[in-house]
């Protein structure tokens, strides 16, 4: 809105023209626009509370836990949570494969055996059994339990369509409630709106 002067007709300039706009002080119109802007930002910020977006790319037994633990915990905080599973991360959502996720015995220098030994046939089975036993002894929730719990709490699990095709999986292979048919743009949109974004 321009600074209006005396020869404008009374009707045209009725809004805001009554106060002279001097030098530095923002005009009423500018202030009103700023208030609108802030109200919009506030409405957006209040829109359903916090959001978390996780990208899960790994399908080993140890790497299945962090996204599921964080997702279920964030849901307990009342966050809106989306977990986008891609590549081996799809196995966490795969009803059958999720029950037999493996722990790799190689590539982890914290393993009690040297890599040369760990690479022998059958060693992954040994380390996986060892970890499964610890999980059971320690009363740690299983991957399946965490997934079912998270689904119950409203976590949205998404299966990347491109990698479903790549791995030759079928939509029916996944747990009920998993969303298939989504891609990177969906994940990106979730990340852009989220307060917390994690790549696991």
């Amino acid at each position, binding site marked *: 809105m321009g600074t209006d002067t005396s020869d404008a007709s009374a009707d045209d300039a009725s809004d805001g023209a009554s106060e002279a706009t001097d030098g530095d002080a923002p005009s009423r119109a500018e202030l009103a626009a700023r208030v609108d802007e802030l109200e919009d930002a506030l409405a957006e910020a209040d829109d359903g509370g916090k959001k978390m977006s996780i990208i899960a790319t790994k399908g080993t037994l140890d790497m299945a836990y962090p996204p599921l633990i964080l997702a279920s915990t964030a849901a307990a905080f009342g966050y809106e949570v989306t977990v986008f599973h891609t590549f081996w991360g799809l196995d966490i959502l795969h009803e059958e494969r999720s029950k037999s996720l493996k722990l790799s015995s190689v590539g982890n220098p914290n393993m009690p055996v040297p890599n040369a030994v760990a690479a022998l046939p059958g060693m992954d089975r040994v380390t996986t059994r060892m970890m499964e036993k610890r999980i059971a002894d*320690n009363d740690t929730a299983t991957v399946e339990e965490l997934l079912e719990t998270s689904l119950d709490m409203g976590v949205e699990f998404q299966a990347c369509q491109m990698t479903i095709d790549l791995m030759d999986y079928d939509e029916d292979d996944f747990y009920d409630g998993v969303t298939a048919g989504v891609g990177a743009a969906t994940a990106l949109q979730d990340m852009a709106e989220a307060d917390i974004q994690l790549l696991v």
Partner: protein
Amino acid sequence: MSSEFDIAETLDVKGASCPMPVVKTKSAIDGLAAGEVLEVLATDPGSMSDIDGWADGTAGVELVDQTEGDDVYKHYVRKTE
């Protein structure tokens, strides 16, 4: 300890480890009415910090008390709204 609040419900998560004490506390709280207090019995030492942090960061709940003894951690959470 005897206290100035009534316990509406008790949740036993003894034996369960992270994240289950918090996750189950949340589910149990959902079933209470505003003003009611949930007692949570846990053996996970991490539950002391976790339930405190969860109550602090979650709308509609308030940590009333926490006690520690005989390997059981007790948490008292009020649903405020």
